[in-house]
């Protein structure tokens, strides 16, 4: 016999069932408002799959093998041990034993299987600990929710049976419920007494089994302190997505697409390019700070470091975006641009970025400053963009907004990406930094050294201080830059031609 069948349960515990039906009706009219989203959406749909597996496990021929076990004075029918459960799951669900144990713990956490010993801790132990299958009546997928009233009846019933049998936390809950549900208390006590008497009328073995099942049910739905209940789903999600939202697709149909082979090829190429830089695939040099508790890796790769590492310099060559994204790379690029006297493109791009991501209040003055510096005819750092873009930008600046420089910024970015970037990679500036770059030796710590490292983990400078320093540097640089001598600029440009 594998636990009590649902029908048997229903006949034995009619008061509970009658009330459950009553409550369900009550809930249908009132609770549906709050439960709107949860009811319609299959948030617990995963449990249906779990249910199917649990039913399989209880199959008399292919399921988990159990036996009658003696526990204290009574004999518990069909008890199963933890290791047998794990073995069955591992075999039938094609997992290794660690995963099987994790899955088994989920079964216990949701209340499909309950422990007989140490019943408050809902985990599956890989040893001879005893478990039983919970009766389907108490499965979590049932439509009725574990209400406070039911809990109060359960605690009251236990109180009637023997005074002082409640745990401390249960006693607390009981007192709380007594205050909270005071208006129903007579009903609750009456129900508790009915159930108690109904229970007494049964055979002792059945009674013990049912008590265990009910107790397990309430451990799952009202977890003891410092334990977790898998029934906890977090916040309700609020909007009922069953309201049909009609997506318009005309524009989507007209969208331009790329062949799968092309775009997937690009994904693979990215992965291959960055493979050696991924600390999860190839160990980083000198060592991963999280592994060895030595933060040299971070020290060597700081923003303002004088000599970068070889890996870092290599990464700059992957794409223009990588170069710009790394502040050290950007600084090196600026050195190159200074030699070429074409720093205005990058300066414009940086200024446009500041406008785009800046605070709303400062926008108009930034836009004006950019116009005067880069776009106005005869501006000191005039950028060379085509007539159409210039026209659009200037027109846009009549009603300046955050993205007014977008067209010009993209044009300049593409220019730098397609031309300047490649010249940079071939330039002596880049070759020099490649030569100068260091390649640190991998660390080889002994176990005792690792222990020492662990004790001496170094704290780092607060990012707030780093930020403040950076801002000071920027201000100094801006002040030092000053107005650029145009004649000298033009002279050097003519010289190059």
């Amino acid at each position, binding site marked *: 016999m594998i636990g009590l069948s649902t029908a048997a349960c229903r006949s034995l515990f009619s008061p509970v069932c009658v009330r459950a039906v009553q409550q369900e009706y009550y809930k249908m009219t009132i609770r549906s408002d709050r439960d709107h989203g949860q009811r319609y959406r299959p948030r617990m749909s995963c449990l249906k799959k779990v249910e199917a597996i649990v039913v399989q496990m209880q199959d008399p021929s292919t399921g988990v093998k159990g036996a009658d076990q003696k526990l204290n004075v009574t004999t518990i029918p069909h008890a199963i041990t933890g290791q047998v459960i794990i073995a069955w799951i591992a075999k039938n669900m094609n997992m290794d034993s660690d995963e099987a144990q994790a899955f088994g713990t989920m079964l216990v956490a949701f209340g499909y299987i309950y422990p007989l010993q140490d019943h408050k801790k809902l985990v599956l132990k890989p040893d001879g600990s005893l478990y039983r299958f919970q009766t389907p009546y108490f499965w979590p997928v049932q439509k009725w929710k574990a209400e406070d009233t039911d809990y109060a009846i359960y605690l009251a019933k236990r109180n009637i049976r023997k005074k002082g049998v409640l745990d401390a936390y249960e006693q607390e809950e009981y007192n709380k419920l007594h205050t909270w549900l005071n208006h129903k208390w007579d009903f609750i006590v009456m129900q508790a007494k009915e159930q108690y008497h109904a229970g007494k009328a049964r055979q002792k073995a059945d009674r013990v089994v049912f008590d265990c099942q009910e107790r397990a049910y309430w451990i799952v739905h009202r977890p003891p302190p410092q334990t977790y209940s898998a029934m906890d789903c977090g916040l309700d999600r*609020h909007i009922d997505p069953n309201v049909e939202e009609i997506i318009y697709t005309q524009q989507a149909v007209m969208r331009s697409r790329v062949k799968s082979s092309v775009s997937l090829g690009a994904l693979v190429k990215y*992965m291959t390019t960055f493979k050696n830089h991924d*600390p999860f*695939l190839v160990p980083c040099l000198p060592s991963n700070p999280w592994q060895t508790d030595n933060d040299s890796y971070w020290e060597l790769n700081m923003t303002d470091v004088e000599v970068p590492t070889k890996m870092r310099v290599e990464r700059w060559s992957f794409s223009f975006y990588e170069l710009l994204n790394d502040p050290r790379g950007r600084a090196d690029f600026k050195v190159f641009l200074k030699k070429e006297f074409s720093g205005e493109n990058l300066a414009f791009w940086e200024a446009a970025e500041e406008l785009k991501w800046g605070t*709303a209040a400062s926008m108009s003055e930034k836009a004006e400053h950019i116009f005067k510096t880069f776009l106005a005819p005869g501006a000191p750092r005039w950028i060379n963009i085509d007539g159409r873009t210039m026209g659009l930008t200037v027109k846009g600046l009549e009603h300046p907004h955050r993205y007014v420089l977008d067209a010009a910024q993209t044009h300049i970015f593409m220019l730098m990406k397609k031309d300047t970037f490649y010249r940079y990679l071939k330039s002596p500036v880049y070759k020099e930094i490649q030569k100068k770059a260091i390649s640190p030796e991998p660390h080889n710590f002994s176990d005792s050294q690792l222990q020492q490292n662990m004790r001496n983990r170094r704290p780092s400078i607060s990012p*707030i201080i780093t930020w403040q320093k950076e801002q000071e540097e920027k201000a100094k640089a801006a002040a030092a830059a000053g107005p650029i001598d145009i004649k000298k600029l033009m002279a050097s440009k003519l010289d190059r031609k």
Partner: protein
Amino acid sequence: MSVSDWLLFLLVRSLSLASLPGSIPFSSLQVQPQPDAKMCDQTFLAITFGPCDSCGLNKPLMNIYLKNEPINYCSLCVELMACQGLATGETIHTLKAESESLKTKLEEERAKLHDVELHQVAEKVEALGQFVMKTRRTLKGHGNKVLCMDWCRDKRRIVSSSQDGKVIVWDAYTTNKEHAVTMPCTWVMACAYAPSGCAVACGGLDNKCSVYPLSLDKNENLSAKKKSVAMHTNYLSSCSFTNSDMQILTSSGDGTCALWDVESGQLLQSFHGHSADVLSLNLAPSETGNTFVSGGCDKKANVWDMRSGQNVQSFETHESDINSVKYYPSGDAFATGSDDATCRLYDLRADREVAIYSKESIIFGASSVDFSLSGRLLFAGYNDYTINVWDVLKGTRVAILFGHENRVSTVRVSPDGTAFCSGSWDNTLRSHSQVGCSSGKWWRWRLNGS
């Protein structure tokens, strides 16, 4: 105007017809241009501000296609047209039928260029070796479920938020707590570290996103300088700073996402298109950096243009709520984790789903996903207390991590890819990294909360 034309405005119309509780009607959220302004902070392109084709006034325009022809109407005229359409007696059912046929057409168009599967391309790539991960740090200090975390750009600090309203900034490397803030609400589901490292943003059941500037003074009460930035009509599910400390992107249970200016608290742009709670968003890392992806309870993942507020692409292949979305490092694809126990990869240029990461034995939903630095590995935290690591190319699982005693609610890889951190409902955060082979030994660790 024929039947098919009205399909183009259905997004606007259905929002007004299907009275969604708690959602804000689109038009009322539009930033109104000041009449005499030389400047106005409207976040769209220059060419979309101009004279409306219908009423002739200088207003922000919506670029839409009418029978394959682009027209520029202001939002008021669009709404008028939509309402007119209903009056001519077209029923919802005929329009639905048209919409369905367009959807099929879209799928056909998408399939036309689909010439190869991901696993075929992956055949030429060598397989990954043995994967062994180890928990390096366990951060204990939260009194309740950890709901969200974010890394600082200095690669070692993190901010985490929990159900009891506490937001803590840690140096994860030394495990020291550096700052702590108590929010006035519970269920702080969103937190983000500012790019400068000088502030954190968080929000949750208070429907707001607040920015707290961090201070070097340990005794200072951070709540005093708090700035209330975003205001939604339902819980805040996710927030993220853009490239600077000055703007925040938020998503909410009211079905919308929004872009805010931090200093003034002004709404810069709002994004409508989800029909249920939006649970997660992620900004694109690409050089143009103008798009973001959001995933919601309506099983859709939408890609948005931040400038115009328009929904650029939409994917609906999941079978249940999408809990988490994350861009591939190159910005050309993104991954999602959902309650249907699968994670999926969507390619933006090919405009389709290209991979599903699932197993028969994985039954519980994925709550959070993130990529490793090269994009080869996908870390996913699940509701069955485990973290699975997938090989993005081959579609196989390469490692499984145990150790958490309750749901894993958030998984994030550090900015330099050296470690990833997971936060869980068991009140702890753990950072994990690869086990090195410098000593020549490979250990198989079952993580027991060390």
